[in-house]
């Protein structure tokens, strides 16, 4: 025996179609924003989580903007538990015009790609494999001006192996003001989602030997250190920092995860910032949907009286308004989730340099669905209860 005239839900929503449309639209926008902002947060967190456990980063204890002497490399390499060390210098140039900014790093050509074997796969053209990877390393070692770039970056600028790419410096300027030229010898594909797909790696010795006659030896931004498997990273960290405690530059060594976390925190407290925005928008929409449903509930008091006179119980209005609110929030939430999934593809491309591993995690979509349903329940129960608590005679008197 049916006790609820469910078709009233559809009819009432259709009767107030513009209000329904606005409610669905506002919730869709809020859920979309929630999904995107939360995905930025979870992607930032996963960058930290994906960091290698066997790698530590050495930087100046003052800040990332203070460099370290080159001779630190040999001293770090001699610390017990250290397997390999590479210089890692931010170059900060751009291709042709400033809008074509992407990351360029000067690294040790002999050791770097061996150290980062678990992070990226080298490719000569578009086919990856041990033979082509070895050929790329060989070419990288043979040419002082060699560069290996992310496959996505090469695709973006239509670079091919053998191309010479001019990069305009913003930090390492030559006295004659000329551009730096790099020869593309291969590409890489990230093996982990947190590795940037749009980076150029080139030889530190090219940078150093070009500038040394004019400006002296180039200092090093950070040293990337792989520890021996099984050797406690904490011991390596304290030993390295102890080694340079009396200068000339004291160091601050941290695990790659901690370094990534510090790097993320340099951008401000993004999780808090994004979380606050997303939360505020959702709360605003919650109030808006509840307000809409209260208006609907107020308009439905007379209907509640009619239904009660016909033999329905007062609680029928709770069920009807709850169903109305849930239908609106399911539609709005579903639309917002769908839009965010579609937009994620574009967002991944836009955020490629800043957040290469941007992805909308299933738990974000699940939370969006749960929040949408929660808003529906909250927005439906209150107005439904309000409409149902009227005595039939009082409800019938209401206009």
């Amino acid at each position: 025996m049916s006790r609820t005239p469910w078709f009233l839900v559809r009819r009432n929503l259709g009767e107030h179609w513009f209000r329904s449309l606005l409610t669905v639209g506002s919730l869709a926008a809020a859920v979309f924003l929630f999904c995107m902002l939360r995905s930025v947060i979870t992607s930032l967190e996963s960058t930290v989580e994906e960091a290698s456990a066997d790698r530590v980063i050495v930087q100046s204890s003052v800040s990332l903007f203070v460099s370290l002497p080159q001779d630190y490399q040999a001293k770090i390499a001699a610390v017990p538990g250290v397997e390999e060390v590479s210089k890692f210098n931010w170059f900060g140039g751009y291709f042709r015009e400033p809008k074509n900014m992407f990351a360029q790093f000067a690294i040790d050509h002999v050791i770097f790609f061996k150290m980062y074997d678990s992070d990226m796969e080298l490719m000569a053209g578009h086919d990856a494999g041990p033979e082509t990877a070895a050929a790329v390393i060989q070419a990288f070692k043979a040419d002082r001006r060699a560069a290996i770039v992310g496959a996505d970056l090469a695709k973006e600028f239509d670079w091919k192996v053998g191309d010479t790419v001019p990069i305009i410096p913003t930090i390492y300027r030559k006295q004659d003001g000329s551009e730096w030229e790099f020869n593309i010898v291969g590409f890489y594909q990230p093996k982990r989602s947190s590795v940037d797909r749009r980076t150029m790696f080139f030889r530190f010795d090219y940078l150093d030997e070009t500038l040394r006659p004019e400006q002296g030896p180039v200092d090093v931004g950070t040293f990337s250190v792989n520890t021996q498997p099984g050797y406690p990273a904490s011991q390596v960290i304290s030993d390295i920092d102890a080694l340079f405690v009396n200068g000339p530059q004291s160091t601050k060594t941290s695990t790659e995860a901690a370094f990534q976390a510090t790097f993320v925190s340099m951008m401000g407290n993004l999780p808090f910032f994004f979380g606050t925005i997303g939360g505020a928008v959702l709360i605003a929409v919650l109030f808006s949907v509840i307000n809409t449903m209260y208006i609907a509930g107020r308009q439905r008091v007379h209907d509640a009286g009619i239904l009660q006179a016909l033999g329905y119980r007062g609680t029928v209005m709770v069920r009807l308004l709850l169903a109305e609110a849930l239908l609106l929030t399911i539609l709005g939430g579903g639309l917002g989730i769908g839009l965010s999934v579609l937009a994620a593809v574009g967002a991944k491309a836009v955020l490629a340099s800043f957040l290469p591993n941007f992805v909308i995690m299933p738990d974000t979509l699940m939370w969006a669905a749960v929040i949408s349903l929660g808003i529906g329940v909250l927005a439906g129960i209150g107005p439904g209860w309000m409409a149902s608590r009227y005595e039939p005679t009082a409800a019938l008197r209401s206009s």
Partner: protein
Amino acid sequence: MTSLIELQGVSKEYTRGGEQLVVLDQLNLSIDEKSFVAMMGPSGSGKTTILNLVGGLDKPDKGVVSVDGLNLAQLGTGELAKWRALHVGFVFQSFNLMPVLTAYENVALPLLLTPLARKKRREHAEYALEVVGLKDRMDHRPGQLSGGQEQRVAIARAIVTDPALIVADEPTGDLDRENADEVLDLLTRLNQELGKTILMVTHDPAAAKVASRTLHLDKGALADRGAA
């Protein structure tokens, strides 16, 4: 003829603006089965309160309201709703149709509370609309019907579950003379041909004339001058 409705020592008070208003005071009333009773009286005399008590929409402060031997005051809210669904049909002055539903859907609304299957519900609703002469308007919404047609749809809704009792609160109050006469004629037919007991509140002497008995109320007290 046996009595269908019994009111014994019924009192009802309301509080309005902090003031206690005695609407019914120790009222005794008996209405026979299959009778057509009109209730007249000035505003505030308690006519609608009696309808609400007899129709199970309200409960007395004191006394007993029984319909077909059942003391309504003893029923809980849910039981009372169930009783209304099966035993009483309401006709209101302002029709009280759901504006978002068609005439057919309005009439079928009470049938959802019965165990009838969809097909049977449709048959019952169509028959009720046929009785009131509006089967051809079943897909129209209230806004597309005249006042008289709306009231006839409301009457079809009141009889669709085949209740023994129909309570009508000024059913002709919002209608012109022609439509009012059509509605009164319909109520008379329901009483005479289908044996429905009708309790009708009205201010219209012409409406009261079609009833078999007229009750006059004043300040919550009854002065029965009705015939038969």
